[in-house]
């Protein structure tokens, strides 16, 4: 989940915000218990609430690179971990360009030529639509707690905020791309502050920051997510949620190649 796509990320945030209610319970009724939470419980809290959920959202993606700056507006539908459909609404040139994720498969639809292109697994670490998100961010299905060993490596005040720092290292058998992930989660509402991703040599690769926590779709969640690749200083991608609705009824069949090609 740490590697979730923007959408999944956001979906996750709302899940996190669900867990946030649990957090309140902790805070009000059992503060010590909360302080003693295991990392598994923290991760599971997110994961459990995440599963089986669906969402429909609109967000703006701002991409800044050394050579150009772009602003995309995207709508997305998600269901559980298995299904995602994203469609670009703006700019005009790319209107209707869409991405469908079903389990581990990823397709892009290109309205200009009216063709669907399957993204090969060799390009999973490639950029999604020119952003600093990878295709892998979109297809990752399993939860962090399943793929990684986890451990609370810090608990307490950092920069004036009471936080958990959880460090994840891949399980031997897990097919994951990161060598290490460090997550920083705010204790009082279990909203993540940032995630840092490292390669196999434990060299930091990118940082994801979560901010602008506000109520949206009935939940409190960070509505801004920014990715900063360390190898390209000055470049970043930020995702700003405009609107999100949770727990709608979406049939699995909605996530079809036929729907991928719809222009609306």
């Amino acid at each position, binding site marked *: 989940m740490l590697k979730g796509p923007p959408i999944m990320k956001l979906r996750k945030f709302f899940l996190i915000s669900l867990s946030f209610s649990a957090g309140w319970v902790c805070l009000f009724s059992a503060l010590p218990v909360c302080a003693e939470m295991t990392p598994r419980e923290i991760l599971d809290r997110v994961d459990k609430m995440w599963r089986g959920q669906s969402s429909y959202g609109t967000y703006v993606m701002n991409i800044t690179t050394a050579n*150009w700056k772009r602003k995309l507006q995207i709508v997305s539908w998600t269901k559980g971990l298995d299904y995602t459909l994203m469609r670009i609404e703006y*700019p005009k040139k790319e209107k209707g360009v869409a991405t469908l994720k079903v389990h581990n498969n990823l397709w892009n639809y*290109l309205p*200009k*030529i009216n*063709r669907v292109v399957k*993204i*090969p697994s060799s390009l999973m670490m490639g950029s999604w639509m*020119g952003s600093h998100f990878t295709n892998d961010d979109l297809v990752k299905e399993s939860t962090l707690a399943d793929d990684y060993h986890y451990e609370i490596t810090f608990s307490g005040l950092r920069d004036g905020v009471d936080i958990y720092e959880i460090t994840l290292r891949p399980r031997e058998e897990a097919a994951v791309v990161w060598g290490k992930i460090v997550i920083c989660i705010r204790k009082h509402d279990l909203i993540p502050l940032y995630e840092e991703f490292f390669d196999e040599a434990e060299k930091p690769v990118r940082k994801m920051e979560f901010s602008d926590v506000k109520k949206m779709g009935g939940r409190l969640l960070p509505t801004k997510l920014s990715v900063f690749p360390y190898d390209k200083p000055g470049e970043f991608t930020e995702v700003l949620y405009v609107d999100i609705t949770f727990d709608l009824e979406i049939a699995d069949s909605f996530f079809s190649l036929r729907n991928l090609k719809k222009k609306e």
Partner: protein
Amino acid sequence: MTVYLKLAWRNIWRNRRRTYITLFAMSLTLALMIAYSGLVWGLFNQMERNATLLGPGEIQIHRPGYLDDRSIYRTIDSPETVIAVLEKGGARAAPRLQGFGLSSRKENSLGTQILGIDPRREKEITTFYKHLAYGTFIDEPGDVVLGSKVAAGLDAAVGDELVVVTQAADGSIGNDLYRVTGVFKSISEEIDRSTIMMSLDDFRQLFGMGNVATEITVRRNSTTDNLDQLRDRIQAALPELEVKTWRELFPAISDMIDLADVSIYILYVIVYFAAALITLNTMLMSVFERIKELGIMMAIGLRPLQIFTLILTETIFLTLCSIAVGLTVGTAGSLYLTRHGLDLSVFTDGFTFAGIVAEAHWFAVTTPETVLPPIVFIFIISLLSVLYPAAKACRLKPVDALVFQ
């Protein structure tokens, strides 16, 4: 002086069998060496040609820094002005663009290197256009030619539709439909596995780029021009760009060809050494056979130096005769191999050697470079190999020589 020539000539033909055997051995060696040099140089030329003419060209020009970071943003502006400068300087040149994109046909897709070329100019530089396994080269807009393994990976054949998706220069999504018009034969691992080629105009449209090139590839008008000097002249004319020869760009391939060069010379030395032994043996025999006779000549007043000159003259005659025969036969053989080649396609379809394609049909070259060294070498070797018997002969004591059995 003419006495020596007469005497030497007669001496040679006194033992005809021995002379014929020597002549035969030396001419055969020479003829084989000439033909062998021709074949070897032919192979080198072919490898060098394939290393350059099926890829980079002989010289490449880039914006500084491009070679470290092959980005579509490090471009050469208005490449035709650069090309005009190059053409004035006695070279041919073609612009290229290189980028990355996803190529897809039906359910198959592959990450590929996209090479945009100017088909008309590229034909002047490289031989991609005739190195096709199937189909034809890029001719019309929308035509693409695929590397052999790309075609296999996409399960694409000539006539199939190909989708290419890229990130255009402005960050937007570039995508278009193309038609597979040809599939290359094996060229190099890189091209076979990951390259698709399209016209420069199609590339510019796909990537949303203007009148720029990421690379300008250059070929000499004549292969006798010195490549390094040409590079220096181009660099002086285009100080703001980076000019490199293919040897600088691909040191591994360059080193391998040089190494092959060395191995050829080692073989030369072995063959020549054998030739030298034959000559040495013949001369030694002819001296020892005539010890008594040489003793008589000394007894009637010939000085050691005169004996030495006589034997040397004999050798020179013998060598000149061998050269006359060997040169004729060897050059004829070499010319035959130059024209018709050595067709090994019964044994192999050609193979890739350190990333360079060697073709199954092997052609020799016949140039002064391949013919003269064997001649000079055999001449020097015969003179050197006669030194010992000649020295031995002129140190003979007439008294001992006369009674020598």
